[in-house]
């Protein structure tokens, strides 16, 4: 079974366009996606896809505190 990190990477690979990142690259667990040049509508779409994929209901305000993959993985694994 895929880990939470692997599932997040698949969401990123399939949906996000990040300048300088190649599909399949490992996620930098401590890199804030806001610093990575992810366009604003893609950040919103990513938030909604995470809720859909993991069956959770993270609010926009909560998500703003979970912008590194490490924080997001920890939150999802604890849910």
């Amino acid at each position, binding site marked *: 079974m895929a880990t939470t990190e692997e599932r997040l990477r698949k969401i990123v690979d399939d*949906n*996000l*366009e*990040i*300048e*300088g*990142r190649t599909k399949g690259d490992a996620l*930098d667990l401590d*890199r804030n996606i806001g*610093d*990575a*040049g992810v*366009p*604003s*509508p*893609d*950040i*919103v*779409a990513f*938030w*909604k*896809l995470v809720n859909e994929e993991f069956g959770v209901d993270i609010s*926009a*305000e909560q998500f*703003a505190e979970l912008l590194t993959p490490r924080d997001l993985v920890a939150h999802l694994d604890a849910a």
Partner: protein
Amino acid sequence: MAVPVSAPWWYPFGAPEGVSVVRVELEPNADREADALTLLDDEELVRWERYPYAGPRRQFLLCRGALRTVLGEALGCRNEQLAFPTTEDGKPWATVDGTAAAISFSVSHSGPHGLIAFAPEGRLGVDVEELAPRRNLDLLMDGVLGEAEKADVASNEGERRLRSFFRLWTMKEALLKAHGKGLLIDATTFEIPRAVRRGAARGRLQLPQLPGVTLQVEDLGTEGFAAALAREVPGARP
């Protein structure tokens, strides 16, 4: 009073009803980037170094350098007197020698395009988006548009669809930035007025998250990019 640079990489883009808008060029340029580096304070240099990719790092550097110079001129202060703390929600504001400056501003960048808007007071938000083809446009539409907005955008095809989406999105993000919470608010909870969606250059509305405050949103887009400005209209009715 501002620190001179060898050649500004910004220029006036318009002054809609008391708001000054400056366009900032963000293409790679070693001389401009070297000039901008001399303007940043220590905290900003740390932030600049933290960006993992060259594009976002350059966008931040050139926009912050332009912002410092433009606001320094508007406020009549030296560059080293300026600082930009942020609110709990991440919105930056300006101080001069540690005291809140009497100026509102908003900054946005996308690809090679940057915009800075500033005014003496009031809520203000600006947004710009590069009109680059997107493979995930339907996903983005679902994420940020209301039902009527999606129907309007979906009635277009190809490049018109892309342009229509980013025209609405820049308006919505400019409004969210004017509110102060930005993307902490779900953008699907409000819609751009119908007349504006159908082509009017500007319109007024109130956000459900900001009752009693009328905001005017205005299309600033060009052939090369989508952009919008949102500003508070004191005492106005939507």
